[in-house]
């Protein structure tokens, strides 16, 4: 806690596009009152100063090389609460797609005969490296959800992240189900909380917020097969943001 009694918070980035941190900046423009109750001590995207005595750490980005791990562990050591910010930190995100190809091939594709110069490994969520207290899902995170999570943390409450499928929000919005229009959508197994933006604009949900705790995978598979998808098609749409989780599921099943 700083001398003015405000909790100190810090933002960190790993492998990511920094879109979640940009969303944080936007959300603070809508809710400048939040700056009266916290002190931001580190936020590379927004400020030059750097403080190391933070209580809450928000981490954007996945861990994509071994040498990122000590930095993550140091953040865990310092912060009382670590929050994963967005799909890359929460799930591994699109970075984890490279796990679908042999690592050497990926490196050679990008760097040619200089591939050996570059350190990398399969991208993973930060929870694969350190204990994470909470995750704000999404690609990018939702502005309002970020504010409500920070408010909950300041009150000592558990952040209100939904654990029900996107279809709930989609139905509340009165949208016509995309399956009835011949489209495919991962809404039935995806965590709600974004307000079903993509289906509301006629685009399929790609599970950027990750799966709910107990998705009905068997039923989902039947729906997708009924929609005419092959096993390869299902694998493709299931691995856009959630390659790491799908691989974990496969490993658990042996």
């Amino acid at each position, binding site marked *: 806690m700083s001398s003015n009694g405000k909790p100190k918070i810090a933002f960190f980035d790993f492998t990511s596009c920094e879109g979640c941190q940009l969303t944080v900046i936007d959300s603070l423009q809508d809710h400048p009152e939040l700056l009266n109750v916290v002190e931001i001590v580190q936020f590379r995207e927004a400020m*030059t100063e750097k403080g190391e005595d933070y209580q809450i750490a928000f981490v954007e980005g996945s861990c994509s090389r071994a040498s990122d791990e000590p930095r993550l562990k140091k953040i865990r050591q310092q912060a009382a609460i670590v929050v994963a910010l967005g799909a890359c930190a929460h799930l591994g995100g699109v970075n984890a797609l490279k796990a679908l190809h042999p690592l050497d091939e990926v490196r050679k594709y990008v760097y040619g005969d200089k591939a050996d110069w570059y350190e990398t490994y399969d991208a993973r969520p930060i929870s694969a490296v350190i204990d994470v207290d909470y995750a704000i899902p999404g690609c990018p995170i939702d502005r309002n959800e970020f504010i409500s999570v920070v408010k909950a943390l300041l009150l000592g409450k558990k952040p209100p992240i939904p654990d029900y499928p996107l279809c709930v929000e989609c139905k509340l919005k009165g949208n016509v189900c995309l399956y009835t229009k011949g489209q495919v959508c991962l809404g039935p197994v995806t965590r709600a909380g974004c307000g079903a933006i993509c289906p509301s604009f006629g*685009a399929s949900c790609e599970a950027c917020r990750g799966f709910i705790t107990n998705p009905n995978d068997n039923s989902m598979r039947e729906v997708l097969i009924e929609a005419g998808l092959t096993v*390869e098609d299902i694998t493709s749409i299931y691995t856009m943001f959630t390659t790491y989780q799908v691989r974990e599921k496969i490993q658990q099943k042996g």
Partner: protein
Amino acid sequence: MAGAKAVDAVYDVDPPRTEKMLRELLYSAYFVADHTTHFYALAGPDFVIGPDAPIVERNILGIIHKVGLEIGGKVILARKFGHNVIEMIGGKIIHPCTSIPGGLTKGITEEQRQEIEKMGHWAVELGHFSLKLFEDIVLKNSTYLDLILGDIYTHRTYYIGLVDENNKVNFYDGKVSVVDPEGNRLGKYAPKEYTDWIAEHVEPWTYLKFPYLKKVGWKGFVDGKESGVYIATPLSRLNAADGMATPRAPEEYEKFYKTLGGKPVHQRLATHWARLIELLYAAERWVELATDPEITSDNFRTIPTEKPTEGVGIVEAPRGTLTHHYWTDERGIATRVNLIVGTTNNYASLQMSTNKAARALIKGGKVNEGRLTDKGNPFKKLCIQIEKASLGGLSLMEKLIDADQTIIVDAIDTHQFPKGTVRIFKLKDLPDLNSGHTASIHDTSLANAIEVGRLICWNLINIFQAFVVYLPAKQSVLMLSNCAI
């Protein structure tokens, strides 16, 4: 946006006019929001408040203090309006979700159009206001003008930028125009021809690659007509075009070159002025598109009929030309992807600017913090520390704690390279010759020392970026006596 165009190309489908206008409208609003933020919150404070002012004053709050409270409100409103348009057309501000092969998932209503038009008129006013502010504070001050025209921030490179069929600046569509350091057009390329024009160079000390002009070739971090280094920025877009196509931006375009001594302008600080001219252009384009009778048409998608294969999409991002190249299988699932994102185009030039500015502004190892963090320096947070070390192993490792990147310059006789040449190695590539021991029984090799430091959880996280420059010694004896000083 480049991705959306690349997907159209993958499916070989030409979207209807309304769709193209909607995407360009979204993009114009995005440019207004981004350019406003870049100027007022990131770069402008250094200019408006002064390059030698203390860092703590050089931010958006400092601008509010100097120019007045209403400017802060304008910046926030520009972002809000820009974001409103993006949300209306794209669903999400970051990673819009409405683009599909051949078009968009939805169009806009007449009610939305009116709202968009109203915000556009406000944005045009903001463009004029910003250019006036730049003129009053910067151009009428000879110190600033000298700073812009000075040599520290000048590089004579090639310039690229997207242009329409009349060679006028366009952010969304057209061909990429390439001009040489004398302002002569080397040619124009369509998106699918980009591999004939652009190649990528790699260096061991960075993950980011260095795109360069293939036809000229990579000659290292140097400028001039023989070097393939180019930039893709607001400045380069103006240099690569013959003018602008909206009502009032052309006057500002002409004034820019008249004031700065003709085309092309090589002074990198002029980028901020160019950015404000682009801000006005984007706002005017926003209004043009919002008032087109076809913008509310329902014809916002062409259903693709071809099998997906391969495609390239190019647009201008606020900080550079954005190229997306996708290859897919017959289901449209991506099998390969190549992206050249905005700032990457400018990476070589950024290195050169940093180098030149550092040489000019750091004297005897002393850093004038004001100048080093001003917008003239491409890396605002640059802090270079130079240390002489006579010992290796543990004591050298202790000097590396908390550094973002380390360069170790050493001299050694390897018997492998000609005497006096410079070689660059990554630390991990060097042999750990005596199995981790040095001559002293209390010390160890640098590689071992770093391992020890990491075990104690010291901040040696970026040591993998450390690289070693070897200057093979002409005489080993001389080297030893120098090291003993």
